[in-house]
């Protein structure tokens, strides 16, 4: 088995140039890029998430590791596609209508991409129908809704109602998050999950797409 220790260490340390160099070395050694994901990148990002939950890593470390894996994925994605490998899952993300905050959503997007998800980021102030259209067009398995104001949280409920009206609610899992959002609120509007932070959101996403 190929020694992925350099690649794992570079991802863990958030050193993007070293991660890309290690990935190139592996490809030059005819390593299957799928194995690179399952044996190196995935376990490294799992460890990053564990260190964050343990309070040893903070958001900057998360993002540097996610940047490292994103650059590796940019290198190997065409090769993965050639082998018929699919992304871990397809996620539509957006900040709900009336809200302009996007940094938390961007953090989740970076972590999801670093974990092999395909992310369709709709940006901020996203109308419910735009979520519906994106989920339908991209056949997303998950939609993530972000709100950072108590006054914009109701738009999460409105968005879920739009999914139901469009007849696609059963086809997609809904994760909601943002500073004022709570698990109780998530339950009250019928969301599938509440994402307390980006690391938790990735873990939730993986479980929600698992067969």
């Amino acid at each position, binding site marked *: 088995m190929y020694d992925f220790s350099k690649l794992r260490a570079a991802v863990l340390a958030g050193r993007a140039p070293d991660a890309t160099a290690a990935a190139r070395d592996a490809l030059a050694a005819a390593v299957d890029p799928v194995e690179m994901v399952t044996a190196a990148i995935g376990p490294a990002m799992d460890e990053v998430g564990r260190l964050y939950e343990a309070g040893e890593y*903070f958001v*900057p470390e998360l993002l540097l590791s996610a940047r490292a894996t994103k650059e590796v994925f940019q290198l190997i994605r065409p090769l993965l596609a050639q082998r018929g490998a699919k992304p871990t899952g397809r996620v539509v993300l957006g900040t709900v209508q009336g*809200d302009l*905050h996007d*940094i938390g959503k961007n953090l989740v997007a970076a972590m999801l991409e670093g974990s092999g998800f395909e992310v369709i980021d709709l940006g901020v102030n996203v109308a419910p129908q735009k979520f519906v259209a994106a989920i339908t067009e991209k056949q997303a398995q998950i939609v993530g809704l972000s709100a950072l104001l108590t006054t914009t949280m109701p738009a999460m409920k409105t968005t879920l109602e739009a999914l139901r009206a469009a007849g696609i609610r059963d086809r997609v899992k809904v994760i909601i998050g943002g500073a004022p959002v709570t698990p109780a609120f998530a339950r009250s509007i019928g969301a599938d999950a509440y994402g307390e932070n980006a690391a938790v959101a990735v873990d939730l996403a993986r479980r929600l797409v698992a067969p």
Partner: protein
Amino acid sequence: MPARSTSPAAPPAAPPPAPLTSETCDPLPLTPRREDIYRCLGYARRAAPPADVAREIDRVVAEALPHLQPRGTYSLYPLDGPTEHSLAIGGLVLEGNIGEFLHGATRVAVFVATAGGAITRRADERCRAGDAFAGWVLDAIGSWAAEAAAEALLARLDPHLQPDEGRTLPYSPGYCGMELAEQRKLFRLMRADAAGVALLPSLLMEPLKSVSGLVGLGPRALVRTDLTPCDRCPLVGCHMRR
């Protein structure tokens, strides 16, 4: 042709009362210390990132500084005896526990401070260009700068204090003590436009990195100078809990 309404039009809102004094500061002095930056990035007190992470952070901090435009304004009013559940400033009544937080105060300053819009635009640019790390750090620095601008602005109240007086902590709408909707009343009580800050219909402030609120001034023996909104807030799991 639609029928003409016969109900009387609502009377226009009474103009806000004249403040005792107002001040606008542009720019406000900011002194970023490394430990403040690390704290705004989520590092625990006295914790520091590893050397290579610190180097990456330092690069973005250097990028952020020219994009900060700290400024602010306040208006000072006499206070009409706050109750536990409300606070009257001139003719305007603010609902909520804010009355408890400002108990003992004889004057109240209504303020808004901002880091300016450029830092948010820069953060957005970096995110759109695919660098979530730089975007996030820039955004966090913008949040720090808004709070630091508010601290620098509120220090300008100190010359208004008598020797035996103190000031409360600042209290902002949307946190324990004042519903976010009360923001509209705050904005009627000051010239936020003088500091370049506008209130959107969603109650977001523009620029995004802005802080508004109230500070009470009064006898040190009576005002609470250490009562935080967290002391009365039921959200025990909030990541911003002090």
